[in-house]
């Protein structure tokens, strides 16, 4: 009997795939792949600690659910800026000691090397990314191509299905930008009930033509499959699809909505110390550069730009493809974390019931 027990134990433990030590949760697709290549694999190789990457549509609600259920399996998560602040307020995240972050190669302390606001109580920025919209160049000819956020909502001039993120954040702002609200006034308008109504009214005009996406990997796929003629997307996903798969995708920077992406550690993470070490490695000058070589999101450290960043194909210079490139900031909006920290729950609820109607 004892023999059988030992035998079964051995059989099972050999049968199952091995347990990983550090689990990083990110957004899957090209972004997840970029962080795997730039952070997970080299950190693992350097420290000898096995680490794996798991995908989520949005890691923030996923880790919140884990912490509240007392069942945390993730050590590091990549979340949006407003979520890093909101979850920190709610006690879902471990505080991160900014002083422990590695300085720039020239000795500048991390707190000065990072762009303003890129380090918060519980999170460190990995990059600045953007919500943009993109279209398939083969679907439009000559001068008749979408150029502004308003064009996205113009079904007469540009007929065809639209891809939109299934969530309130960035979608409501985009609707207002498309309705002609100047970027500087978007949050003032959205802060009033009439402004929210106005955003939903704008979305109503294209609602029956919308294909909703949830995972960031979906929009390039929707474009490639011809399911939509244009779609909102995370800019890096479109860039990578265009570069690595040679797709004729064009990004429209007008009306882009950009923000910081943060690495955070959920409270009760199984390997908290290793998680902190991972974050220190990944957000070093070189770590941020390595990520920007994989996907077109801008590093949040000034020192990462010391030399021009080149894409992994070895020839494309990244600077003009980053959301923060001056030529892309013409009509751009920085996500207001203050606004979304307060209104995330309320507006998403309204969005869901609007969707169900």
């Amino acid at each position, binding site marked *: 009997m004892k023999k059988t027990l030992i035998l079964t134990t051995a059989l099972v433990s050999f049968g199952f795939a091995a347990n990983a030590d550090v689990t990083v949760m990110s957004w899957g697709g090209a972004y997840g792949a970029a962080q795997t290549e730039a952070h997970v694999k080299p950190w693992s190789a350097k420290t000898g600690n096995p680490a794996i990457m798991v995908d989520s549509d949005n890691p923030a609600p996923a880790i919140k659910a884990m912490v509240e259920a007392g069942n945390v399996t993730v050590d590091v998560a990549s979340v949006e800026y407003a979520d890093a602040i909101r979850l920190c307020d*709610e006690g879902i995240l471990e505080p991160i000691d900014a002083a422990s972050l590695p300085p720039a190669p020239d000795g500048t302390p991390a707190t000065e090397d990072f762009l303003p606001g890129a380090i918060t109580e519980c999170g460190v920025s990995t990059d600045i990314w953007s919500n943009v919209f993109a279209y398939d160049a083969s679907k439009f000819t000559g001068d008749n191509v979408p150029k502004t956020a308003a064009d996205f909502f113009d079904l007469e001039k540009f007929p065809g299905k639209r891809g939109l993120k299934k969530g309130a954040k960035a979608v409501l702002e985009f609707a207002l930008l498309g309705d002609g609200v100047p970027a500087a006034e978007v949050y003032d308008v959205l802060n009033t009930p009439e402004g929210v109504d106005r955003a939903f009214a704008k979305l109503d005009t294209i609602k029956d033509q919308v294909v909703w996406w949830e995972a960031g990997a979906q929009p390039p796929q929707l474009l490639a499959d011809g399911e939509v003629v244009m779609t909102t997307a995370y800019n890096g996903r479109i860039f990578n699809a265009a570069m690595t798969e040679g797709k004729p995708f064009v990004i429209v920077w007008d009306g882009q909505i950009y923000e910081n992406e943060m690495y955070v550690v959920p409270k009760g993470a199984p390997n908290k110390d290793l998680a902190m070490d991972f974050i220190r490695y990944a957000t070093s000058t070189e770590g941020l550069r390595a990520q920007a070589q994989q996907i077109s999101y801008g590093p949040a450290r000034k020192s990462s730009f010391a030399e021009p960043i080149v894409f992994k194909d070895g020839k494309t210079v990244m600077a003009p493809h980053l959301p923060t490139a001056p030529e892309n900031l013409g009509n751009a909006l920085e996500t207001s974390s203050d606004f979304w920290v307060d209104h995330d729950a309320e507006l998403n609820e309204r969005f869901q019931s609007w969707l169900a109607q």
Partner: protein
Amino acid sequence: MAEAPTALLTTADGRPLKAALATAQARARRRAFLLVLPLLAFVLLTFLIPIVYMLKRSFEHDGFASSAPALVAWFKSNPDFDPMNPPEEAYAALVQDLARMQVEKTTGIAGTRINYSVPGSISLFKKGAREAASLTPPFKESLPALDKEWARPALWRGMASASHVYTAEFYKVALDLKLTDKGWERGQDNERIYLYLFAKTFLISAIITLLCLLLAFPVAHLLATLPMAKSSLLMILVLLPFWTSLLVRTTSWIALLQEQGVVNNMLVALGLLDDSGRLAMMYNMTGTIVAMTHVLLPFMILPLYSVMRVIPPSYARAARSLGATSWTTFRRVYLPQTLPGIAAGSLLVFILAVGYYITPALVGGADGQLISNLIAFHMSKSNWSLAAAIAGMLLASILLLYWLYDRLIGIDRLKFG
């Protein structure tokens, strides 16, 4: 030695036969039960207890009760307060709790609890907690000055109700009742999303059941009337989908039905469709209905088939020979005999359809989502109690249907292949 006066039957060892029989039967019952016991214990642990636990969660939420002790105490000692005009002590207790929440980082939890009945409360609590330390008495004026929502009677009703750990509030929310200044009332028509989704789920399930019945009837009839060798061969065509992974079948339907999919491409190539007029059959309700009909069709064919196979063909022949037309024969003689099969198949398909999750999640888009998907949505937003309450309502309707199935058909008649 006198003989026993009554002719009591006894066993060889002299015990009354009746008693011996009873003992033997009790022993047999016990033995039968003991065989089932290990499985019962296992099902209890992995199935029944989790469901009971979930139902408990649907009545339970301590998010507010545990993070606002001062206000909870005040509500306890003033159960009959007037929510239209709460006194200064209530406001003072609230401000004290808000300041405490800010320190203990519990605003999110407390706000979420109130948010169930009073939407917008998460934002309200966050702002309130941030400012609480700097507020000055009288709080009855300074707090509403921050945001007039703090004086709303609905909010006070919500907080009073949330001060109890156990509540039926989540069921009220799941029934689309809204907490207004006057108490719980029926929500506006365009706000009734849960009942609407329940109705839609039942409607879609009914459509799928009907489609399955229409498709299954001729096939089951053919299988039942063909010679055994041929019908066994054709039966494989029914059983193969049954054995194939649900995800494989759903993937296939995406490949077939999406706008650049096989069916649309074929129609365009044949000139039946304009390239710009491709049909939207995927990521909407059509996608859900088509894919689910395919997935559930074998569950209709098999019970129909097993009933049809035992219908003697002589009845139909007799009807024909007595002068009935083939339509009359079908309608008056054949159809009534298939009713048990129709009932069994339809109920089974309907029950399975109502609880479907995977297929709608993958192919349903925005309007092809069912009630299960809503439960998953609330789980992912960590609205545990609301998800549990909706699941509780779904469970109740399924159990009703299951009971009906057992009454009409009997679960031991369930068979595959």
